Structures are given as C-alpha cells and as structure tokens.
C-alpha cells in the first residue's frame, strides 16, 4: 500500500530515532526473535554445509549399506525401517547412495571454484592494475567466454573430454573463470586509486609486490562471498550435467545421475527423484545462504537494509 511521502518519511524517522531506545527495553522474546532472524540463516547454512562435509568424509562409516550392493529381494521398495529412503531399480539403498553422492557434489563444487579462483583472480588483478593492451586482451577473451553460459560451456567441454570427475571439475572451473576475472578487475580498478597503493608505489614497491601485498588482501573478503555463491552454482551445474547423462558415469552414485535414473520410475517410485533432488536443492541453498549472509556482512551499501539473510 503506497504511503504518502510525508508519512513514509515520518515513519522511517520514528523507526530510526526509536531504535537505540527500544533496544534496551524490548522483551526477551522479541530480542530472541531478532537474534534468531539475524543469525538463524547463516547458522543453519553453515550447519548444513558442515553436515554435508562430514557425510562426504565419513561416507564409508556412516552409510548403512554399500552404495553398490544390490539387494535383489528389495528392488524399488519405498522408504522403510530397513531402507530409510527406499531402494532403486537394482535394489541398492538410496540413503547410502545419496551419502556417497555428497562426495561427488562437494568435490566438484569446491574444486571447480578453487580452479576458477586460482586462474581468474590473478588475470583479473593484472587486467585491472596494469590496464592498457593487456587489460583489453583479457577482457575481450572474457567477453567471448561469457557468450557461453556455464552449463553450455561445461556441456561442450565434458562432451569433448568425456564424463569423469576430473573433467567435470575442469569444465565447470573453466566456466567460472570469467566471473572471477570480472570481479577481481573491478576491485583492482577501485583499489588502484587508494592511498595505500599509491604509498606502496612511492615506497618503491614493484607491480607484483603491490598486487600481492596490497590489492589481493583487500579484495579477499568480497572474493570469498562470490566464491561461496559460485560453489552453489557449481554444484547445480554438476547435478545438471549428471542429469543429462554427462557427469560421472553410473554405477558411481552422484545426486544428478540418481535423479536421472529415477526419472523412468516416477510413476511408481517417486522417492528416487524426490530425495536426490532434495539433496541437490538443500546443498545449493546452504551455500547460497552463506554467501548472502557474508555479503550482507561485508557489503557496506546493503548494511542496515532490513533483515540480513535469508
């Protein structure tokens, strides 16, 4: 409902003026609610990521069955006490396969982002700091890169190289490089004019010294935000590739190929697709939430704008 400008401004002014006073007198309940709203999203995001990492590392010990063991007496069974999330068409335990699939998703998600980061950030810093022909060349290449969407580029590369874990990492990592180049270049451009960089140069620091000692440490926090959002899109892209049958080939379990295999059985056994897709979604959501929370924390422009998160 549109308020008049005056009333709106008044209500904002009241809210601003009242803030410090009310902070002291709010009841314990609303204080708890306020804190929960502030930290619940980050907290749950971090908890989920920690649990996923734990599942990936401890897969051999915590999964109830082997991911490849076929129980022929229990083909396509629904969730039960014996098989918590049911079984697939070969009588394999879905929960165990999902736990093992966590490894693929996290390995690809995190490694691809590290690859993109390690190649993209130096290129971006060089482009932004040195400028000139080098910058023009790097940015032209980046523009070309961006003409392919992450999934399309990964699709072409994986098709060319074959679907293995390593190739998926390379394909998605290469696709993420331009994100980091553009970001690091923008940050380097704005930091280049700062006084400590000028001082560093006046003190006789060389280009490499300035880039490593002054530029990079000052952009790392922003880069980390984007990196965690990129992990989310890397996981989603991996799942997409596996879904299209271009990821890690079966019988190795990955969330995407479980979902893809389950598609043929959605009529009778929807739990196969439902649970594997849920796993993908929860993981993507968790990394997105963490990235968002970090951005709210680090981006001064958005600071104080409503509730942080979700």
């Amino acid at each position: 409902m549109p308020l008049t400008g005056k009333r709106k401004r008044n209500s904002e002014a009241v809210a601003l003026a009242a803030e410090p006073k009310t902070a002291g007198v709010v009841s314990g309940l609303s204080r708890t609610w306020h804190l929960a709203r502030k930290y619940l999203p980050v907290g749950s995001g971090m908890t989920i990521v920690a649990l996923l990492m734990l599942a990936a590392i401890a897969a051999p010990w915590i999964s109830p069955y082997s991911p490849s063991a076929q129980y022929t007496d229990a083909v396509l069974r629904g969730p039960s006490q014996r098989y918590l999330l049911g079984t697939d068409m070969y009588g394999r335990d879905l929960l165990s396969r999902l736990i093992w699939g966590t490894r693929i998703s996290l390995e690809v998600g995190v490694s691809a982002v590290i690859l993109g980061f390690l190649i993209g950030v130096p290129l971006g810093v060089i482009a932004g700091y040195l400028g000139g022909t080098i910058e023009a060349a790097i940015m032209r290449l980046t523009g070309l890169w961006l003409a392919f969407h992450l999934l399309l580029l990964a699709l072409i590369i994986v098709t060319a190289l074959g679907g293995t874990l390593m190739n998926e990492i390379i394909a998605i990592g290469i696709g993420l490089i331009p994100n980091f180049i553009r970001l690091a270049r923008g940050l380097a451009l704005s930091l280049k004019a700062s006084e400590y960089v000028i001082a560093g140069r006046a003190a006789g620091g060389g280009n490499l010294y300035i880039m490593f000692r002054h530029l990079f440490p000052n952009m790392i926090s922003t880069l980390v935000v984007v990196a965690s959002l990129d992990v989310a899109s890397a996981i989603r892209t991996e799942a997409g590739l596996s879904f299209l049958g271009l990821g890690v080939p079966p019988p190795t379990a990955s969330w995407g190929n479980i979902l893809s295999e389950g598609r043929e059985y959605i009529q009778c056994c929807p739990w196969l697709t439902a649970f594997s897709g849920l796993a993908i979604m929860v993981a993507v959501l968790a990394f997105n939430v963490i990235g968002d929370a970090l951005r709210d924390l680090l981006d001064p422009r958005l600071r104080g704008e409503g509730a942080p998160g979700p």
Partner: protein
Amino acid sequence: MTQYIVRRLLVAIPMLVGAMSIVFLAMRVLPGDPCIAMLGEEATREALRDCVRQLGLDRPLYLQYAEYIYRSLQFDFGRSLHFQYTVGSYLWRMLPHTLLLVTASTLIAVLLGIPAGVASALNRRNPSIDYSLRVVSLLGLSIPVFYFGILLLIVFSLRLDLFPLIGGGDLDTVLDLLKSGEVFAYPLDFLNALRDVLWHLALPAFALGFTLAGTVTRLSRSAMLEVINQDYIRTARSKGLHERTVVYKHALRNMLIPLLTIIGLFVGLTLAGAVLTETVFARPGLGKMLVDGIGARDYPLVQGAVTVFTMTIILVNLLVDVLYAVIDPRISYR
C-alpha cells in the same frame, strides 16, 4: 550514435567467429570417431574410409574450419549423421518450440520477479514482507529447474492428471495455419491446436519461469535499493510528490537501466535452463536436439545447436548494448 552502433557491430563479429571456433575445436578433439559411432565397431575398413570421405573428415583441418565458418553463417550445418535430413531444416523446426518456451518463461519470470523485487525493496523495514519474499526468491534460485519440473510433473501430470506428461503440442498446425493465412478459414482447428500448445507449455514454462524469477527478484530488489537512496528521489519526495508518483515515475524507470545490463546474462541462463527443461518434459526444441545429438555423437547436430545458442547470446548482447545507449542518454558513445 550511428558510429557507436557500427562499432558494437564490428566487435560482435570477431566474437561470433571466436565462439564458433571454440565450438569447432571442441568438436574436433572429441575422442569418439563419428564414423565408428555411426557404423559400429565391426564396420569394415572400406566402409569407414567411405564414411570419412563422405563427411569430409579426411581433408586438412583448416579447410574444414573455413568451410564450417562459411557455411554456419548461412545456417548450413550439413546433414545429420543419423537422420536423413539437414541440420538446418531440423533447427528451423525446433526453433519455434524453444522460442516459445523461452519467451513464456521470461514473461513469467519478469511478471513475478520485478514486482516481488520492488515490493521487497520498498518494504525493507517490514520484515514480514521483505523476509518472506526473499525466502521465496532464494528457493527459486536454489531449486534446480530439472528437479522443480519433475516435482510439477509428479503432482500435476501423474497424480492430478491435469497436464500432459510429454511433448510440445501441435505447434506445427498453428504455424502452418498462421503462415498460409488459413486461420480464418479454419478458426476451430486453429484454436484447438493453440489450446493444445498452451496446455503443453504451461508446466515447462512455469518451472523455468519460477526458477528464473528468483534471479530477477534479487536483481530488481538491489536495483531498487540503489535507486531509492538517490538524491533525485529525495528531491522528488521533498517536492511533495505522492509516494506512488515517486515510485512509478522516478524510481521504477531508473531501476530498469541496471536491469537491462544483465539481460545478456539472463539469456544465457534461460537458454541453459531450456536445455534442462526440454529434457525433463521431453519437449521438442533446440536443447533437446543438443542433448540427443551429444548422446548419439551426431557432430553436425551438436555443432548446429551450440552455434545457434551462442549466436543468440551474442546477438542479444549486441541488441542490449544498442538499446542501452538509446534508453540512457548518459551513456557516452565511446
């Protein structure tokens, strides 16, 4: 202005050629031999040699490359290895399906996303509105379109039996009637075919549209936040303008400019989403064609589909650059 547009055009051409070169390179280093893929492992040596010659794979690479670029620019991608038709004709048949899906889902994304983003930004001090809108947009952003699509299929097609499970509907009839101008001669046929198309379109378009709406919501929220704190908004308010006028006349228009810049990115997102959506819903289209082509190692088919995808992205970006300059007079035509 004209000079600016010409310059953008001149930049787009090498980009197009560069992107096509990447496609060509990727296709040529493919480990699988197309002839073996086509004829099977037991094919005789003579048959294989005939096949290689027929496809022109025995000629020098630079000749193949030059021919590929030259022909691609005329939409001639050769003949499919598995089916008896040219890739060009197949592309033209599939293109309307993908265009329809992309347009419909973009429309849904914009109609859901921009109002949600604006409402979220304007109500940023009202957590119940801002917070819930942000949660929904985050869900849209995080749910993979192929998962959301399957969930929709399970509920609305399998359980409730409201929508068809596969296919793209009778789009050919609609287009034929439109093209031949016989729409008015057979209005009932036309309406039936149209209804069939829309019926098949509903779920895929909603699946893709909803996931895209998450992105649109966030972008328009931050664009609105940026604009609403500007001096000219304060000026407009202090002139005593109605808040509605401030939002609709001053804020909304200026907010659309930063949104325009991400259209290029958005097109890539939508096309990639279309690849997945078409696969989930078994809808005919460029994406399905690409995936089928990869599965069958049908090189010309893959090359054609990827080239068209890339061309689209580059051309849309070019269009946005030009549009941007037309809309925002502050842009200098470097």
